[in-house]
């Protein structure tokens, strides 16, 4: 499930959740055909300007359609059953998918980083998710499918991008500054102290885009969740409250997962002497 898909899906779900005045207008097959007809514009530009992205664009649209159809069908079942265990299982599956995507996106060996990353994502997502469902919208059932799945997906989708940036920056900077890192160890630094400059740089790189997004939200674009809530028939002020809450939840989740991912990853990517194990990088035989 990619980030955009999650956002869109989440927007629609939250829209349904917040619906108070009227139901969302369903899209007929003819309407969906009209939506696909809109593809003529980008595809025509790609062909006309010989951009060379025709195949990629078509494959992407097909993938998106199949993925969302599959997720839609599955979610319908999950929503109908609304079983807390099943809902928790779905969230765990989303975390596992995000986990592998992040490890791959960082060019690290999945087997070496997946476990610490999984626990970082689990903790970093669970806390803002529990606060959102339990304290902000105050649902009696914490694992209510209608809330926990879209909100969890939104938090996770944003963590995914931030974690890739953070983890990549961390390992890039430590490889570049390995002599300085070794010097810190030789000067008596504990591992966390020696890693501190690299952790700080990585966390800054990971959080900067989220902070920039928060600052421009509403001015540059109406975000997916707010759009979904409005389409769901809620008053704009309700939609705005949802949007503010979700942005803070995303920020909280992003900061937690980045911090925890770097912290936990240090336990499995450095040996007992505090030395970086280069075997974690793909394409190296050490």
């Amino acid at each position, binding site marked *: 499930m990619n980030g955009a898909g999650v956002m869109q899906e989440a927007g629609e779900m939250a829209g349904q959740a917040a619906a108070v005045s009227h139901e969302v207008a369903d899209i007929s097959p003819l309407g969906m055909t009209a939506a696909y007809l809109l593809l003529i514009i980008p595809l025509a530009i790609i062909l006309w300007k010989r951009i060379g992205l025709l195949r990629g664009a078509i494959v992407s649209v097909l993938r998106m359609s199949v993925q969302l159809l599959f997720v839609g069908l599955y979610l319908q079942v999950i929503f109908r059953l609304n079983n807390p265990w099943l809902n928790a299982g779905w969230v765990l599956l989303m975390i596992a998918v995000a986990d592998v995507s992040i490890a791959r996106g960082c060019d690290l060996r999945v087997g070496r980083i997946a476990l610490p990353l999984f626990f970082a994502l689990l903790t970093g997502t669970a806390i803002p998710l529990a606060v959102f469902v339990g304290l902000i919208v105050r649902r009696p059932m914490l694992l209510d499918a209608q809330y926990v799945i879209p909100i969890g997906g939104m938090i996770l989708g944003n963590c995914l991008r931030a974690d890739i940036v953070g983890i990549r920056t961390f390992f890039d900077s430590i490889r570049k*500054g*390995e*002599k*300085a*890192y*070794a*010097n*810190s*160890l*030789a*000067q*008596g*630094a*504990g591992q966390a*102290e020696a890693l501190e*400059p690299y952790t700080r740089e990585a966390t800054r790189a990971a959080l900067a885009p989220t902070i920039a997004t928060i600052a421009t939200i509403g001015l540059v674009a109406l975000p997916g969740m707010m759009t979904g809530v409005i389409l769901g028939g809620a008053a704009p002020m309700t939609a705005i409250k949802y949007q503010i809450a979700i942005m803070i939840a995303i920020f909280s989740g992003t900061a937690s997962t980045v911090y925890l991912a770097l912290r936990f990853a240090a336990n499995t990517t*450095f*040996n*007992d*002497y*505090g*030395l*970086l*194990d*280069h075997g974690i990088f793909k394409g190296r035989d*050490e």
Partner: protein
Amino acid sequence: MTSITHTPPAIEIENLAVTFAGKPVIRDFSLRIQRGEKVLLAGASGTGKTTVLRCILGLCVPDAGIIRIDGEELTRRSVWRLRHRLGYVAQEPDLGGGRVREVIERPLAYRANAHLRKNIERVGALLERLLLPDDVLGKQAGALSGGEKQRIALLSVLLLDRPILLLDEPSSALDKAAKEAVSELLASQPERTILSVSHEAAWASFSDRSIELPPAPNNNQPGGTSARGGQL
């Protein structure tokens, strides 16, 4: 002399063996350095002199052999504590970012060095002895010359009051006057154990004795790479 015979050597290495990518670099190397000794580690390029220093610091994990610091074996558990007895100046020190003042203050901020924070008062005197001007403290560390970096790295290590110093070509980028200043400063500290790697003749005279590292079995050492457990 009685005290020396009853105290363990400052550094003891037994049958050290290091390989890089399956190729042996150091094989069956042993040495003993008593407390207060100044020893020069000599040998042709690529014989693994830097690797020996890095193994002592636990920055390179050997394939075989035992290293003891003050009689205590260097292991994955003891390495963190034993590093607090060692001071290291690399051949081309990477001082990290920031101004020289921050570079000097940074190690004193580490938890393990908290009791040494007052040593910052010695900076002025050390700058003078190392022929460095006071205003060097305000310069960016990255903008220093090679010789200035070496002397700042040495100054920083001296502030940590380590009983054992490991110096890798500490005078390679120094002019004649600076070399003499560094040599005099180190020679004036009889209590410190110093193991240094150097090609300088002056350094040989400053040392109590010299140990020749035999040529590497295949004489094909990749520079600065560690054996097992990573590359630093």
